[in-house]
């Protein structure tokens, strides 16, 4: 096995990187892939809680890097998808400069033979934390919401990922609100793609289920019964190279019914 290493990034914070990492990791594991989700957000870790694994952490990857433990000791196995899904936690009481990009590359290379996918949750911004988390990745998924600050910052990140040689770089539009788009009060999927000229891998609607899921520590893709869960399952399928149709939401469409139908068609 040699894992595909995918970093989940954004320019702006709070747009859904951790949510996306958890849901995509679960969805890929449910498809029978061996997945490790790595929390790249040293000092501000969240992925453990969103995945509901916070009580099972003993070691983290800083311990692995500093030789306090072996890699398998730091991996937290998710019992709900035993043998398929693991979490590699970050240290909560350290800072971003606890690791170097070289150490992150080395860590990813240790994980590669053991897994099909290494999914890296990245801290926001364009500073050291981002560079570390992205260092070991082959591919990138950039998250944005359809709002001005997030899209502008996404453009910056895409430029950086390109210059770092990541490929493919694909976009997830998160917290999409069809009714607002229908009313021309929110950038449409096509608007965002026109501006960023990058490949789209999925659109995730605004969904209260996301908050309930993080309350309980059970990512939506375990059940897949909500719009966002379904959108993430589709994204996982597209990562696997499947041709899942991308339903276009056309902002110019004046038919409420078509907008309504499309709303449930992510």
């Amino acid at each position, binding site marked *: 096995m040699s894992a595909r290493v995918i970093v989940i990034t954004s320019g702006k914070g709070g747009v859904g990187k951790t949510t996306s990492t958890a849901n995509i990791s679960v969805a890929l594991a449910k498809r029978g892939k061996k997945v490790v989700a790595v929390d790249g957000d040293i000092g501000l870790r969240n992925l453990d809680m969103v995945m509901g694994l916070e009580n099972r952490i003993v070691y983290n990857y800083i311990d692995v890097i500093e030789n306090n433990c072996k890699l398998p000791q730091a991996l937290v196995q998710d019992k709900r998808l035993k043998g398929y899904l693991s979490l590699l936690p970050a240290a909560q009481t350290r800072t971003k400069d606890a690791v170097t990009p070289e150490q992150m590359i080395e860590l990813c290379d240790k994980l590669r033979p053991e897994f099909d996918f290494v999914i890296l949750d990245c801290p926001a911004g364009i500073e050291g934390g981002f560079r570390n988390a992205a260092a070991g990745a082959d591919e990138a998924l950039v998250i944005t919401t359809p*709002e001005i600050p997030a*899209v502008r910052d996404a453009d*910056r990140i895409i430029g950086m990922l*390109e210059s770092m040689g990541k490929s493919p770089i694909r976009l997830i539009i998160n917290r999409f609100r069809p009714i607002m788009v229908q009313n021309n*009060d929110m*950038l449409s999927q096509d*608007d965002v793609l026109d501006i960023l*000229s990058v490949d789209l891998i999925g659109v995730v609607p605004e969904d209260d289920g996301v908050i309930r899921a993080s309350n309980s520590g059970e990512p939506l893709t375990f059940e897949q019964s909500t719009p966002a869960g379904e959108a993430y399952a589709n994204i996982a399928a597209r990562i696997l190279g499947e041709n899942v149709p991308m339903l276009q939401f056309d*902002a110019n469409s004046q038919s409420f019914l078509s907008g309504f139908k499309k709303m449930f068609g992510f």
Partner: protein
Amino acid sequence: MSFFSNLLGGKSNSSAKVAKDRLTLVISHDRTDISPQLLENLRKEMIAVLTKYMEIDESNIDIGLDSNDRETSLVANIPVVRIKRGQPNR
């Protein structure tokens, strides 16, 4: 923007359209990160070189950076009045 879409949705001045226009503009600047001073110096030096070979209409020169599809190009529109014959005078 067609009459009908204006009538039905007012898309031409909708808040989504305003957002798109503002983003397109600011991102084209972000991507090219070049100061007006640098552009002015470039313009002067280009004129200096070009006038060795041809007579150009300096008042109607248009030089700028153009971004699309994640690529930036230097676009210059320089009206030529007359090509000089022989060697350039140094």
